[in-house]
């Protein structure tokens, strides 16, 4: 994975939306569509069966979408947005994954985050970690002064 100087866009902080970043944006978009479509169908047809699970799916879809937008926009604002989303996502997948193990009856129907995202090849667990690593890797070299 050594690819220094693959991109000319180095300082100050590499672009978040080029190279591996574009792959991340693609995967985030795909998951926004997957979770969003799933939540839409579930909420429209049988919300009362598992309101918690379906609401969570919808929330996850929004977070994936906002993360994709944050990475695509880049800059300090986009970076902060993406960081927040990745952090919430990681917390969400860990919390929901653990909760669905301990209280399976609270999750009668699966969400993207159930059992740490097993239904989606654990990508929901890996994705926020990759996102955070990417944000760190592309971060500006020195802490920016307030300017």
């Amino acid at each position, binding site marked *: 994975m050594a*690819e220094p100087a*693959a*991109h000319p866009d180095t300082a100050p902080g590499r672009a978040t939306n*080029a*190279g*591996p970043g*574009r*792959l991340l*944006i*693609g*995967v985030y978009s*795909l998951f926004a*569509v*997957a979770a969003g*479509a799933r939540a839409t*169908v579930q909420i429209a*047809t049988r919300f009362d069966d598992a309101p918690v699970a379906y609401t969570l799916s919808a929330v996850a879809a929004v977070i994936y979408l906002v993360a994709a937008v944050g990475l695509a926009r880049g800059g300090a604002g986009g970076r902060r947005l993406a960081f927040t989303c990745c952090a919430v996502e990681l917390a969400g997948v860990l919390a929901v994954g653990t909760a669905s193990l301990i209280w399976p009856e609270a999750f009668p129907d699966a969400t993207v985050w159930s059992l740490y995202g097993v239904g989606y*090849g654990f990508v929901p667990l890996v994705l926020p970690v990759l996102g955070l690593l990417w944000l760190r890797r592309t971060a500006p070299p020195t802490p920016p002064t307030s300017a």
Partner: protein
Amino acid sequence: MARVNGPLATVVIFAALALAAWCGITALLNRPPGRPHEAGAAVVELGLVALTALTVVEIIGGERPAEPAIFVGYLITTLALLPAGVIMARMEPTRWGSVILGGAALVLPVLILRLQQVYG
């Protein structure tokens, strides 16, 4: 047996896997995807369009997917995936463009399997 579960679907799945492997090798060689990769994606997409046409004929003929709304949703996603992958790969003319197209080709078989499950 429904068309989505038929031999054409199997052919498309293996074609997509071949495309994914090809893009993976291209990425390992540190190259962006070129015209041949896009042509390969077009061939896989043509197979998908043919599969869709057969399924639509079947539905007009009176058959119904077990979960129609979800089936149509997956069908649209499946058809849009490779074109979206090619567009994003063109925006990224590096090895990562190859990873993007290969990734899309790798997700495609999963979507086809889901289509088959949802059709019932």
